[in-house]
């Protein structure tokens, strides 16, 4: 029997500006999380996410990026997952990012992430592996430089049942 599946957990809409966004107390009752980001920032910047306030150097990711200047791919090990890496947030063009976190509450696996980030002049696919078996209970969304998310930026977290 089919099961209703796709639940909105929380939405945050920026009023004025916000230096970062946090989703906390994420329930462990879903199988996957999907984070949808739509926004602009006060200046051009990469953007990233971090799980469980963990700033350890254990976020692996690779990107396939296509922007006006060319195509790029790289492997990075960092203290956060830069979901907007070559396709950066900006003050003028809205970025849309869809970040899928599979088996986020399973404690027998590292956490794996698939993301797609798009702007009017570029697109990138990324995969990330967070080298932790802890269930993800919080997500911090932030930027590389001293920027802020601007008025009207929207961040929505969904949960998928399995």
């Amino acid at each position: 029997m089919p099961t209703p599946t796709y639940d909105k957990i929380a939405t945050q809409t920026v009023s004025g500006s916000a230096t970062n966004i946090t989703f906390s107390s994420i329930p462990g009752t879903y199988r996957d999380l999907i984070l949808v980001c739509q926004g602009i920032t006060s200046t051009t910047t990469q953007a990233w996410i971090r799980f469980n306030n963990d700033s350890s150097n254990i976020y692996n990711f690779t990107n396939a990026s296509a922007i006006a200047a060319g195509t790029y791919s790289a492997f990075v090990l960092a203290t956060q997952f830069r979901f907007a890496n070559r396709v950066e947030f900006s003050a003028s063009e809205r970025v849309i990012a869809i970040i899928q976190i599979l088996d986020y509450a399973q404690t027998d696996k590292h956490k794996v992430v698939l993301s797609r980030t798009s702007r009017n002049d570029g697109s990138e696919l990324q995969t990330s592996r967070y080298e932790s078996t802890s269930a993800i209970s919080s997500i911090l969304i932030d930027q590389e430089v001293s920027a802020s998310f601007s008025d009207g930026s929207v961040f929505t977290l969904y949960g998928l049942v399995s």
Partner: protein
Amino acid sequence: MPIPLGVLAVAGAGGGAATSAFELLETQTLSGTQASITFSNLNTNYGSTYQHLQLRLVTRTSRTDADSDPILIRFNSDSGNNYARHGLRAGFGSLSSVGSTAQSAIFLTENSAVNKNASNIFTPIVADLLNPFEDRQKTVRAISGLLASGWYGTELWSGNWANTSAITTITLLPLIGANFVAGCRFSLYGTRIT
């Protein structure tokens, strides 16, 4: 009109259960090893209700002679050379594409094998099957990635099954390894026609 599936469109889905158009149909989670995964009776059970299907997979296989092991998908138990597949691969600092026709299956991804990868390294795959029950050739697209000890990649694959029959069976299997291992998860979702 159903919302198109997948990573390109999840922003359009959502909402509470009362308005859900995207529903879980079946899940298989392995507690031991298994050579292949089959979802069957699909057209009978879902053909009149769902327009598109999505597979959400977390996989790892028992291959021991390499770090990665492709995952294959077949329809209606057809192992003839009736499939085409094309992939965009990003990793090791470069982008590349591969493709071939007259194949016996569609690739979904390179996948974590047990050889050099820690036991908790699995591969995420999200694959969309568009119009699986309609009388036209079937297409699949998948995004996936593997970040393991000897393989770093993000992949975008598409495939075609040159058959107009409604899909009744989906089979997933490793290319090289004998089995999927414990902990693998295979979930099938559907997007409603109306």
